[in-house]
């Protein structure tokens, strides 16, 4: 039997790692991965709460999150490709034409 808070803390840590990844990674794709990591953290929270509340809404939500994540992945990667085409780089720090 596992205390709910353990799950929540775990998901929090995952989310935090995602945020950290977004901030410190330079490769666009890796950054995108960190976002996925954040989403996973959220999902865990949903599922944990669902288990606690014995309500399936959480599961449904996770399902939709996954769908959205998939869609985002498609679009996002397309965008990354487009950027790569114009800039020939995947380093975020080089993608700063627009500033100030």
């Amino acid at each position, binding site marked *: 039997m596992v205390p709910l808070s353990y799950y*929540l803390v775990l998901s929090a840590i995952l*989310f935090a790692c*995602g945020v950290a990844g*977004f901030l410190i990674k330079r490769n*666009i794709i890796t*950054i*995108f991965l960190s*976002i996925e990591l*954040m*989403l996973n*953290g*959220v999902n865990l*929270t*949903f599922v*944990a*709460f*669902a288990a*606690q*509340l014995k*309500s399936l*809404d*959480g599961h*449904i*939500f996770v399902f*939709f*999150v996954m769908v*959205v994540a998939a*869609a*985002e992945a498609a*679009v*996002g990667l397309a*965008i*990354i490709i*487009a*950027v790569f*085409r*114009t*800039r020939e780089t995947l380093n975020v720090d080089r*993608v*700063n*034409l*627009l*500033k100030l």
Partner: protein
Amino acid sequence: MIPAVDYIRILPEVVLSVFGILIMIVEPLLPEQGPKKPLGVIAIIGSLAGLAATVYQTGSYGSAFYNTISVDTFSVFFHFVVLLIALVVILTSFEYLEVQNIRSGEYYGLILFGTVGMMLMSSAVELVLIFIALEISSISTYILAGMRRRAAESAESSLKYFLLGSFATAFFLYGVALVFGATGTTNVYGIASYLQGQPSTLAYLAVGLMFVGLGFKVASAPFHVWTPDVYEGSPAPVVALMSTGPKAAAFAVLLRVLFATGAPGWFWMVWVSAVLSMTLGNIGALVQQNVKRLLAYSSIAHAGYLLVAFAAAKQVGISAAIFYAASYAAMNVGAFAVVSHFASSGERYVTLDDYAGLGRRSPLLAAILTVFLLSLIGIPVTGGFFAKFYVFSAALQSNLIGLTIIGVINSAIAAYYYLRVIIFMYMRDERVDAPVARIPAGLGIGLAISLIATIYLGVLPGRVLDYAVQSAQALVK
């Protein structure tokens, strides 16, 4: 089984989706090199049909699909706003697409689908649906932002918008998750019933996180940083859309999340965010040379004014916010429409220097832009004036004197940079090398609509305001 009336309650969305699909079917049938006008026409018809559907909808208020959406004056109001925005944007895009050669099919399709998302955002009362609708509108705008595929700026702005957007979405989602945990439901009114009495710490935290997500969408400080870059890089008509449509929708969501659920403890959060947005937005705009960027900063500031109305909370505050959203949409779409026309191919002419002497080269265009700018300043006989006026009077009615003072001073400072544009247009020696094409029909109609809207809201705001008041009541029923 699901009653028929439920379908009426999603009729506008359905209609728009149908037209969107229609466009995608028609596009390949058109000759490769031939004019893509028909698609635009379909899109226009689509949005008009959507308007008609919305009108039809007003007959049958109520919730549908197991309380996932609720059609009330509030949502209908935003339906109208969003649809009109879409209509004007489509009209504006007519020439633009050809000038920039952007693929019309996807463009119009995405606008229509995005609009569907926005409309759903305003009518959804189930966080799942809100989330998905949000994503629809966001993703379609991400793509639209990147549609000037030859321009590195366009791609970059698209990337920035996308990455940061999903980043913020994650926060929003986390908030939702915690709400779910705290209340056991994701239905707005369900949540409301749970949040009676002493809400748990979890609820506070959840509200905070959702505010982060939505604050990003409405570009309120400190979640505004993306705005200038994205607006600068994206195609002007798309900016017209994304600076008004998703924003209005996101504000609608924010209204629902904060007020319909009776969420706790957001006041100071909103207060600070409002002050920051107004100040940072206006200060930042003071020295901008690029008109799109300038308007981006101004839109941040306007988000701030809107949040002032939020802080005012009461009925008056909500209705003021709603009215503000409407009039802001009217004037901003108009302004960007002018910008997009003047930018011409490759968006070459977007700096203030390019606007020098516009008053001589194209008096009409300049005059129209002037009206929109004056409205953004908040000069009488324009919607912007009344909008600000209501917002601040609402704030004062709930005794937010400090916030009001900060607000009015900000609006006075803001006058400077809008005035700068006017000055360049009328008081600087003209630049001959920035030609102005004659105003095409589509753009003309689009401008006319937003111009009329702006003036109408400025002279006879009575009816719209009453409607806003009703919406506010409907929201917190």
